[in-house]
């Protein structure tokens, strides 16, 4: 019988939730790294027992942890993230120049093809790669030295590289999203990058359709169709059918198109999920009702999924890395909230139930489908 393992990063530690394929009864372990912010955990697609975790506090900085036994035990690995050469400057919130300073690892993305290769997206925005199981890190500096980088400005969470998507059909192609710079694509394994933000419009910047400056919250891809990308921007849900060369808005009938997460069904490449949030100034669901919206048409037409979700007095947020999808035949969908709930659906979103209700604020959710 298959198993699923949900990896949850929170403001005060990490938790591992496991269940069999029925996904009805869950075992919860944790907190791992108690008291630390765990921005992200993720497992290798090659060996699911190889996990990485980003553990950080403002007091003691960045620690990287690795497990080789599915989270039963952990060991600290390399935490030296040194920008390549003189880091230079980006723009600060007030528009003044500000030196590039490493703050934390937001996102860890294990390689699709090599067990010991893993990527780290960091704040201040840059991409690092390790080829020795996270013991040492080297910057892929072509991103941070992109010609537009001196104009990048942080979003409210910092100038963070929070999303990295690897193309399973093209070993050299990868996509990153940076708040608030936008989306970038490399076709040579991270050496060179181009901004791919054509079609995005953002009212909070002087030129709404500028080459960079867009606060992209999340992008996702179905592995069977890597040229199609979906995006939850600050405002607007977007879609690209040409690997990001151009984007079209697919917010359609959503009641509000602000939000953070977006993800794709495991077996239906045109079925996507978002959790609309009221606005950029009110980071909670509309009317106190927590609703996942699902589109079976790749956007435009959306249906509200409410069965099992709180429909009154709910004022949590769902952060950008806090939704994940398993690959069981009846596809499971999971998301975590800033109120400490992790909700799961074992039927593609038709019905929901809390797996846990009282964790610290959830920063990230990943899921592994285990044989």
């Amino acid at each position, binding site marked *: 019988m298959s198993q699923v393992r949900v990896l949850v990063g929170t403001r005060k530690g990490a938790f591992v939730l496991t269940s069999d394929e029925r996904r009805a009864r869950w075992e919860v372990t944790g907190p791992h790294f108690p008291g630390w912010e765990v921005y992200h955990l993720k497992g290798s697609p090659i060996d699911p027992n190889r996990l990485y975790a980003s553990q950080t506090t403002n*007091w*003691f*900085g960045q620690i990287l942890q690795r497990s080789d036994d599915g989270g039963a035990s952990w060991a600290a690995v390399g935490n030296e993230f040194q920008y390549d050469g003189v880091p230079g400057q980006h723009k600060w919130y007030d528009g003044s120049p500000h030196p590039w300073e490493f703050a934390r690892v937001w996102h860890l993305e294990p390689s699709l093809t090599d067990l010991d290769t893993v990527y780290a997206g960091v704040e201040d925005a840059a991409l690092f790669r390790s080829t020795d199981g996270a013991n040492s890190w080297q910057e892929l500096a072509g991103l941070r030295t992109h010609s537009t980088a001196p104009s990048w400005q942080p979003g409210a969470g910092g100038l963070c590289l929070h999303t990295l998507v690897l193309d399973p059909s093209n070993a050299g192609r990868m996509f990153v999203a940076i708040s608030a710079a936008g989306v970038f694509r490399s076709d040579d394994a991270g050496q060179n990058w181009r901004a791919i933000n054509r079609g995005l419009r953002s009212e909070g910047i002087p030129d709404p359709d500028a080459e960079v400056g867009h606060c992209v919250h999340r992008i996702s891809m179905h592995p069977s169709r890597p040229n199609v990308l979906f995006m939850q921007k600050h405002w607007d849900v977007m879609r690209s059918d040409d690997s990001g060369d151009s984007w079209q808005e697919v917010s359609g009938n959503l009641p509000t198109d602000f939000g953070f997460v977006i993800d794709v069904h495991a077996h239906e490449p045109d079925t996507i999920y978002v959790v609309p949030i009221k606005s950029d100034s009110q980071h909670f669901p509309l009317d106190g009702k927590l609703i996942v919206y699902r589109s079976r048409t790749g956007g435009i037409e959306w249906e509200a999924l409410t069965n099992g979700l709180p429909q009154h007095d709910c004022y949590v947020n769902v952060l950008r890395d806090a939704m994940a999808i398993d690959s069981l035949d009846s596809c499971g969908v999971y998301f975590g909230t800033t109120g400490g709930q992790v909700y799961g659906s074992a039927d593609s979103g038709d019905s929901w139930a809390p797996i846990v209700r009282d964790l610290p604020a959830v920063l990230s959710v990943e899921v592994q489908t285990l044989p």
Partner: protein
Amino acid sequence: MIRVVFPPHLRTLAKVGKEVEVQVEGPVTQRAILDALEATYPVLQGTIRDRVTLRRRPLLRFFACEQDLSDEPPDAPLPDAVAMGSEPFMIVGAMAGG
């Protein structure tokens, strides 16, 4: 031996108790103690001082002999009581409430 007192999170990381002892060759300074600590417990690299600049992390303080020595030069000699091991060198995290 130099006595060093850790905050709880660093004890967990280094897998030690509240206080450890380290051997320092030559003058007993902040830098010498931190070098010895990081050599003995590599997991602490980057957690007390920045890995590149070696500056004290902003939310940590260094106390000893009822004095705040945080802003003393890293190569300034520490009090004799620390050097003699009769008083600990304390690494303290800024208080966090809320």
